């Protein structure tokens, strides 16, 4: 019951926050000089003034700010995200078309970063001054400090061009014949490089944190007791210490969820991954306000859901949290 209540409160806050964010963003978009009529004219190689005026009138861009804002909020209250100026399609349709691709990429990258990060962290914690530990630290720092678009292009050059194992762009090869398995394998092949690229930034965080908490836990009294009881080393590390050390890592992963979503914008752009990130990037460039706000809305949802999932996972691995409300 208390869990349910706290969930409600969180959803309530999320809705308020979301509304504030939408209004703020709408205002920012309005304040920026120029509008979507300019980018539409750009995509057409120029347009006569008459045409530009017509476009502005069609989309209500010639109305005063408050009228435009009122109309937008009114539509949102009816769960209508509006119509994309630039793509001539309902925003909801555009987003739902793209959402699965982003979810696939973001969750794969997040799980990849977590699993590999924790494994590397544990390895280096067990021998904090060993070669493996230094190697892990170096790798982590490299992944963390290299800009993700650069990592992406580097991976492309090595694994698409020099050693052509993986495709360059997109999510599927439309010329592939065959059943579900053939297509699933094809998507997987397309997924490898973008997922690794996106995971590379977060790998560093997770492995460093896992290493630090593992070191701390391994030095704690109960671990020493377990060792003194004569439990095998492996059992102590993985059963006793790791479970406790995981908790902060997963909390961090939850907090990082929004960063993963925003990181996806860059990675998707490099790999032409047909997700929300590329849509966001191009809508921003096109000044397509309804689409941008719609994406913002959906990515907020993804982050909220991601955080809720994190909570659930934390409760699963840490019994102490189960009784608490928050």
């Amino acid at each position, binding site marked *: 019951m208390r869990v349910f209540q706290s969930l409600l409160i969180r959803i309530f806050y999320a809705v308020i926050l979301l509304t504030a964010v939408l209004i703020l963003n709408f205002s920012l978009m309005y304040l920026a000089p120029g509008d979507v009529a300019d980018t539409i004219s750009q995509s057409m*190689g120029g347009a006569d003034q008459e045409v530009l005026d017509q476009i502005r009138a069609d989309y209500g861009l010639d109305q005063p700010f408050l009228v435009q804002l009122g109309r937008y909020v009114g539509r949102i209250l009816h769960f209508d995200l509006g119509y994309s100026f630039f793509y001539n399609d309902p925003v909801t349709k555009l987003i739902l078309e793209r959402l699965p691709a982003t979810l696939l990429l973001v969750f794969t990258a997040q799980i990849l970063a977590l699993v590999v990060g924790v494994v590397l962290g544990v390895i280096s914690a067990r021998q904090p001054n060993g070669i493996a530990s230094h190697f892990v630290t170096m790798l982590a720092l490299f992944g963390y400090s290299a800009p993700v678009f650069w990592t992406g292009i580097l991976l492309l050059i090595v694994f698409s061009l020099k050693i052509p194992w993986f495709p360059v762009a997109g999510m599927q090869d*439309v010329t592939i014949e065959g059943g579900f398995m053939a297509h699933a394998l094809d998507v997987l092949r397309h997924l490898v490089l973008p997922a690794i690229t996106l995971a590379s930034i977060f790998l560093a965080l997770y492995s460093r944190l896992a290493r630090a908490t593992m070191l701390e836990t391994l030095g704690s009294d109960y671990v020493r007791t377990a060792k003194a009881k004569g439990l095998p080393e492996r059992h102590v590390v993985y059963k006793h210490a790791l479970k406790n050390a995981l908790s902060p890592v997963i909390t961090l992963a939850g907090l990082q969820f929004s960063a993963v979503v925003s990181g996806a914008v860059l990675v998707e752009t490099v790999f032409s991954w047909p997700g929300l990130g590329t849509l966001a990037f191009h809508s921003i460039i096109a000044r397509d306000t309804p689409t941008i706000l719609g994406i913002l809305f959906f990515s907020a949802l993804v982050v909220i859901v991601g955080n809720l999932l994190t909570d659930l996972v934390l409760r699963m691995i840490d019994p102490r949290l189960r009784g608490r409300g928050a």
Partner: protein
Amino acid sequence: MKHLVKGMIVSTVLATIVAGHAVADDPVRGGTLITVLGSNPRTLNGAVQSGIVTGYPTAQLFASPLRYDEDWTPQPYLAESWDVSDDGLTVTLNLVKNAVFHDGQPLTSADIAFSVEVIKANHPFKTMFAPVETVETPDEHTAVLKLSRPHPALMLAMSGQLMSILPRHIYGDGPIEAVKTHPRNNENVVGSGPFKLVEFKNGEHVILERFDDFFIEGRPYLDKIVMRIIPDIAARTIAYENGELHMGAFESNPQMVNRLKKVDGLVVTPEGYGAIGPLDWLAMNTQRGPLKDVRVRKAIAYAVDKNFIQKALMQGTAADSRTGIHPDSPFYFSEVEIYDVDLEKANSLLDEAGYPVQDGKRFDLTIDFGWPGVKPQVEYVRAALKKIGIAVEVRASADFPTWAKRMGEMDFDMSWDTVFNWGDPVIGVHRTYVSDNVGKGVWSNTQGYANSRVDEILAMAAVESDAEKRKALYKEFQTIIADELPVYHTNTLPYHTIYSGKVGNPPLGIWGTSTPIDMTYLKD
């Protein structure tokens, strides 16, 4: 290459006349062409949207009355023949009898009349069909365009991507203005072109397949076209290089072009963009500050080294351009005033204009740019003008609309700009120089240039039916422009077509890929 293509066009035209006649270089039927779009098309309907990204798919989906060869000569397409009356006021199109839309309905003169109406109401280039008053349809296969004044630009406007013929029974179900947002502009598109739409997935691909009832017997050669949407330049470069793409067009990144030129099995060519006519130039606001004085504008031209821009910044990929008309156009006139670097002359012109050096400089100017690709150009201009005592501040814009607004409102001193000719000069050239189009949005006469003789010449050229007289008018126009420099023309935007050796007969006419590719094939 040019001769080969020409030979093929001639021979394929012959082949269609004498059915079954063997063609010299036998094209192969079948195969899937993998090609690429550099951004997401807003719509696939070329009657309501121009631009190169829509142009490629729309020219495959919809047929147009005419098409052009690489010598700027109109060729029959939906119109098997045509006739322009002596007074230039009546243009009669005799349509092929066997054209059908993708849904099986026959294409008739009523569809031509309907499409003209749709284009007049929705297409961004109002000049294309403005003089067309009515379209008469005496019978199903004859369309007669009645004009209010002679309009030679009509011929190019009836080709390629500028005039998509829409089926009235599909797109005529609502008000004419609503065709702009018709639900069937992006899905279930119905045209009469060589390919029909299978799927358009936003951000992913446009897939087209052969239309078996296309009105030209035996064409198209390809079974399928997959247009992948890959906006990232680096990703496209690698995809060309590792063979994931057979062909792509409108590539202007010098690094990409030069890298791909060295790849075995790829052909990289700047041929085929004459009608698109993309030009790079330095725009100068002739209504502001020192730039009002033509001597100042000339001094700037003498200080900016075009050779450096073409050879170093564009890495040798761009051609020289001297006037507002693209060098590949039959109207281009190159023997105009040119401005080889001459700092002494530049300095004396500035002295003469009354701007002596004081405290190390003469005066301040700003320079704008609208997209990151041309930042090197504006940085170079800043450095070059410093040498003659003009302190230039580079003003970046957050994005395209920010820059477009500055340009549209003439809130700038100088700017780098790229503008397209779009076929006939009436469509894409006049807009930059006529005085009744000053400051009307981006790519209007944003320089505030006004010269009554230029207005007069361009008005005459717009209605001059005699090709030679028209050419003479444009010659005078180009001479004046090069002398008065509302913009300093530096180079062509180096669009290139890239195709693998597997591609036979790639589209290298005047419209790039904004043309039906029914003659393109894949070699075994």
